[in-house]
């Protein structure tokens, strides 16, 4: 039962990691490499800018918001601000941001921001020491632009790869086996936003010697443009999935399916698919298919109870008409023949959906092992795939434990 033990990076480990990364700044004596360039006024301006950017996160398809304030924090690191200052800017900006948005200030979020900023300082310091000397533009008149390339590359890697990976590892609840895959997927999902944020941080550090107080309002403009595009995309993707969830309520309105069935099955199916280590695209399609597994009912005659295969076929037809959901349609169709399908392709997602559908509404008494045994036997018989049933059991047990705790 090793797989049933949820493996995750405990908050304490992450905190220790962050603190030691930040402490590296002093250990490697970054001050000798990254010349401090921020005056007290600048720090104030950076705080204002970070607060404003706290209110302008970029939302991703899965509903998470990536903070763009990290661009300001990254620039502060590259401009040689001490880790304490950087962490303070991040923490205060996060707190002020939530006050501005009339949200509750969550100490957890504030301390996570501070820790992240602190750690980024350490990453920047390592890059500064290992990398080449500070680069400077050659100009005839005026102050040249400067940038510590090593620190800039390190900060970029920290923002694009490090932060999303650590975040994913902290959330992973699907066992050690897939933690790294999930982390890679998270990096992949965040890559555009994170790249824009990292480029902005580098740009800000580069132009600050020249532009001074004008650095922040100008450096954030390209990022603001990126936000217009990406945020709209994220909201659109969210609307798409939410509409599919809304569609799960259509068959329920016909009276033959219990209310909330589609949403519950989809939640279960997501957890099972993650537990079985499906890739992100397959997880998404499994969840969609779970939401829509009964959608065929809106096509069939309402009054006549339909056999399983007709329902699956009708559902597939409805979904094929959409034009973009062919894989989901195939999963829905495959529900009627899960026994005969190979595990690759749509076989596994279809089995997950059927198993979760079977289980929904069934609440065995935890103190009656016989009941549980009977339910498992029945599930194995229906699905014909003991691994799916085992994953489903793990998911349900985890949820039960969480409920009890």
């Amino acid at each position, binding site marked *: 039962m090793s797989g049933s033990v949820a493996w995750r990076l405990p908050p304490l480990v992450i905190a220790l990691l962050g603190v030691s990364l930040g402490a590296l700044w002093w250990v490697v004596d970054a001050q000798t490499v990254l010349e401090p360039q921020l005056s007290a006024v600048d720090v104030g301006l950076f705080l204002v800018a970070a607060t404003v950017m706290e209110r302008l996160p970029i939302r991703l398809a899965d509903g998470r918001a990536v903070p763009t304030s990290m661009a300001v924090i990254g620039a502060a690191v590259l401009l040689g601000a001490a880790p304490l200052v950087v962490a303070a800017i991040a923490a205060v900006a996060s707190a002020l941001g939530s006050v501005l948005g009339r949200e509750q200030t969550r100490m957890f979020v504030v301390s996570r921001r501070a820790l992240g900023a602190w750690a980024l300082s350490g990453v920047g310091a390592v890059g500064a020491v290992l990398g080449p000397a500070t680069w400077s533009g050659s100009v005839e008149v005026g102050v040249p632009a400067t940038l510590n390339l090593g620190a800039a590359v390190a900060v970029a890697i920290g923002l694009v790869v490090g932060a999303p990976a650590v975040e994913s590892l902290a959330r992973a609840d699907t066992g050690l086996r897939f933690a790294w895959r999930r982390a890679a997927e998270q990096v992949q999902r965040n890559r555009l936003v994170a790249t824009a944020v990292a*480029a902005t941080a580098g*740009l800000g550090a580069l132009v600050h010697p020249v532009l001074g107080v004008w650095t922040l309002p*100008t450096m954030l*403009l390209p990022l603001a443009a990126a936000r217009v595009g990406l945020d709209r995309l994220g909201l659109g993707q969210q609307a798409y999935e939410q509409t599919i969830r809304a569609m799960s309520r259509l068959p329920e309105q016909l009276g033959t399916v219990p209310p909330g069935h589609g949403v519950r099955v989809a939640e279960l199916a997501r957890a099972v698919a993650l537990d079985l280590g499906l890739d992100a695209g397959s997880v998404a399609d499994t969840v969609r298919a779970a939401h829509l597994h009964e959608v065929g009912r809106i096509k069939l005659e309402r009054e006549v109870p339909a056999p399983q295969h007709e329902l699956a076929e009708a559902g597939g037809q409805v979904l094929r008409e*959409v034009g973009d959901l062919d894989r989901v349609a195939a999963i829905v169709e495959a529900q009627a023949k899960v026994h005969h399908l190979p595990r690759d392709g749509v076989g596994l997602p279809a089995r997950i959906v059927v198993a979760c559908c079977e289980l929904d509404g069934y609440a065995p008494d935890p103190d009656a092992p016989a009941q549980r045994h009977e339910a498992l036997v029945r599930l194995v018989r229906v699905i014909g795939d003991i691994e799916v049933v085992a994953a489903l059991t793990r998911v349900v047990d985890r949820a039960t434990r969480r409920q009890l705790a």
Partner: protein
Amino acid sequence: MRGPQRLSTYIASTATTALVAVLWAVPRVELVPALTLFCTVFITERYASLLREKVMASLTNVVALVAIVLGGPEMAVVAALGALPALMGRASDAIWVKRLAFNSAQLVVSAAAGGVTYVAITSSLGGVFPDWRTLLAISAAAAAYSIVNHALVAGVVALSSADGFLDTFRTIGPSLALQIPYVGIAVLAVVVIERASWWALLLMAVPALIARHGLLAFQELDQAYERLVRSLVTTIEIKDLYTRGHSERVSQLSVLVAEELGVGYEERRVTKYAALLHDVGKIGVPLCIINKPGPLDDDEFARMQEHPTIGVDILHDIDFLQPEIDIVRYHHERLDGRGYPHGVDQEDLSRLVRIVTAVDAFDAMTSTRSYRKALGIEDAIAELERCSGTQFDAEVAAAVARCVRRVGWQPTSEFASEEALGGARIPHAPAGELRRSRGVPAPAPMEEPHRRDGSTAQAGWPSSAERDR
């Protein structure tokens, strides 16, 4: 022949001005930076992306401003010329030569105007980039560029169409506001080029490219989303013999009416989808009620009245619809508070709700239903106008009338065949006659959508023959 001649003269003089500017500028610029900027404008014009309908986002302005700061008006003129080959790739129709000549010439003239403004201010105030004097000069150059650009375009629109010069020129507001970020980006670019290196521009290009990627991906996604919602609505409607295509038509016409009433883009977009989905709750009403030929009894009507509420319930976690979910919830409500299912007061009916309510009723009137045949367009408009103030918003009703006349909206011909009705008879008369034949008093406005007019005992509900579904 006066109009076209004046147009040609106008284009020719713009082109000549541009040509003079180019001939003056070319010998005066440094070759490498000028070529680079020329190519950059080519790229920004070629890959200008649609920010949203009718609004193009292009960084040509920014490049022009950079050119102005780096090399004055002559550099800006040469850079703006890069638009010519880019626009050539888009040529498609009969007057493409004129269009091409004008569009590239107006960019050159605008860039020259911006450049002259910049040089005039910096030479009188002095200042070294990037101090406040030069920032002021760049801002003024951006404004000049934008004003000349708008004036030239407004001129060509005034000469080639019925719109007045000022009508077009007035749209300069948003464009001037856009200059603010453009100025910022241009300043940043100049600093990077002058004090760092050309390659560092990549740091700026990355967010810009990502923004473009996001916008393009969003447009693709939006189309996919539209396919999803449409096919869903079609699947539901297919069971309803009388309202096939109804949601689609209500959505289309509501958006037109919203545009007519000056509703903004985001709200129009929400209206489009909310109107498409306004009847989705009918899935919870038994088909035998929906497709029943002839009047509904009280129980059946009570079931029918639930559909807006069911719709809200189904759609409750689609976040972007929530600000306007009242479109679904209240699409059978009336201004005088006698609508269903809530009977709310008119203060609760937002403008978008009023639009969809009126359009819904209009489309219902101009389609055949199980209990009567379609009205003609003018008859339906007359009904809408007769009921405005009590049932519909007068301003909205007038806008509906303008829109359907303008686009030549037709009554719906696609409806259930007589056979599909299984022999049930559809009353042939328009609403008014039907009412008289059933002996219901006439003061009631019309039968679409329903009202509580006090003509029957049951809490003021009309007799069942009057009830719309």
